[in-house]
């Protein structure tokens, strides 16, 4: 391996592992090889005596990671805490608004099935009671009135059943829609957290 090949490989390994002082490491080995070349050694001898680029980077990577974590973590925590406290009036209200909008969205989505259920229950229950009572109305008020009540009862039960069916299909679709939108929201929130972390 020549000096150029060694330096190129070292640079590639340093980039791959994301070592912070990559430039210093390359300069160090560049100068070391030059010095030993001046002293009379050959390129092959020098490089054979050195550790391979992968070994050098592996040795650098572990302490570098530990140092970064030790040094950066407290600073980041203090900075983030400070910014969070300082910006609370802004992000707090924005977060609250976002939560209210999401809750309102769900409420609006489920308003349809809710109203459908009320209409269905009112139609079916009210119509059924009216249907049974129309017999007694016939006995007391006359059959003309009773037939009118019977007709209204039939229409009420029919409309109630249509509302019930429509609510059933709407609910089935909305459950899928709500699960999908909730997953999307949670996914978006998680990706934002990853970016922040």
């Amino acid at each position, binding site marked *: 391996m020549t000096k150029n090949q060694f330096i190129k490989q070292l640079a590639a390994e340093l980039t791959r592992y994301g070592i912070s002082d990559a430039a210093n490491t390359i300069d160090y080995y560049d100068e070391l090889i030059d010095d030993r070349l001046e002293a009379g050694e050959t390129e092959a001898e020098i490089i054979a005596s050195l550790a391979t680029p992968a070994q050098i980077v592996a040795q650098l990577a572990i302490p570098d990671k530990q140092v970064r974590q030790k040094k950066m973590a407290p600073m980041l925590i203090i900075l983030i805490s400070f910014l969070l406290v300082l910006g609370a009036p802004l992000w707090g209200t924005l977060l609250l608004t976002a939560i209210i909008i999401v809750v309102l969205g769900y409420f609006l989505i489920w308003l349809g099935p809710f109203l459908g259920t009320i209409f269905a229950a009112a139609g079916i229950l009210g119509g059924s009671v009216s249907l049974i009572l129309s017999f007694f109305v016939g006995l007391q008020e006359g059959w*003309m*009135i009773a*037939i*009118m009540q019977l*007709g209204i009862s*039939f*229409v009420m039960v*029919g409309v109630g*059943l249509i509302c019930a*069916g429509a609510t059933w299909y709407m609910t089935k679709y909305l459950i899928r829609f709500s699960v999908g939108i909730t997953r999307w929201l949670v996914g978006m929130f998680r990706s934002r957290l990853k970016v922040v972390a």
Partner: protein
Amino acid sequence: MLKNWLKISLCMILVGIILMTVSFGMAGFKSQPFQYRGTHEWSRTFNF
């Protein structure tokens, strides 16, 4: 294809409309017989 519940609902509405029309026809197509003529005091029904 219509579902059974929809067929039943539509049939019930149709029967209801026919019954209402028959009753209205029996009254001579006048709404007067169906108007409320009682003397019920609603304040006694909902006497909270």
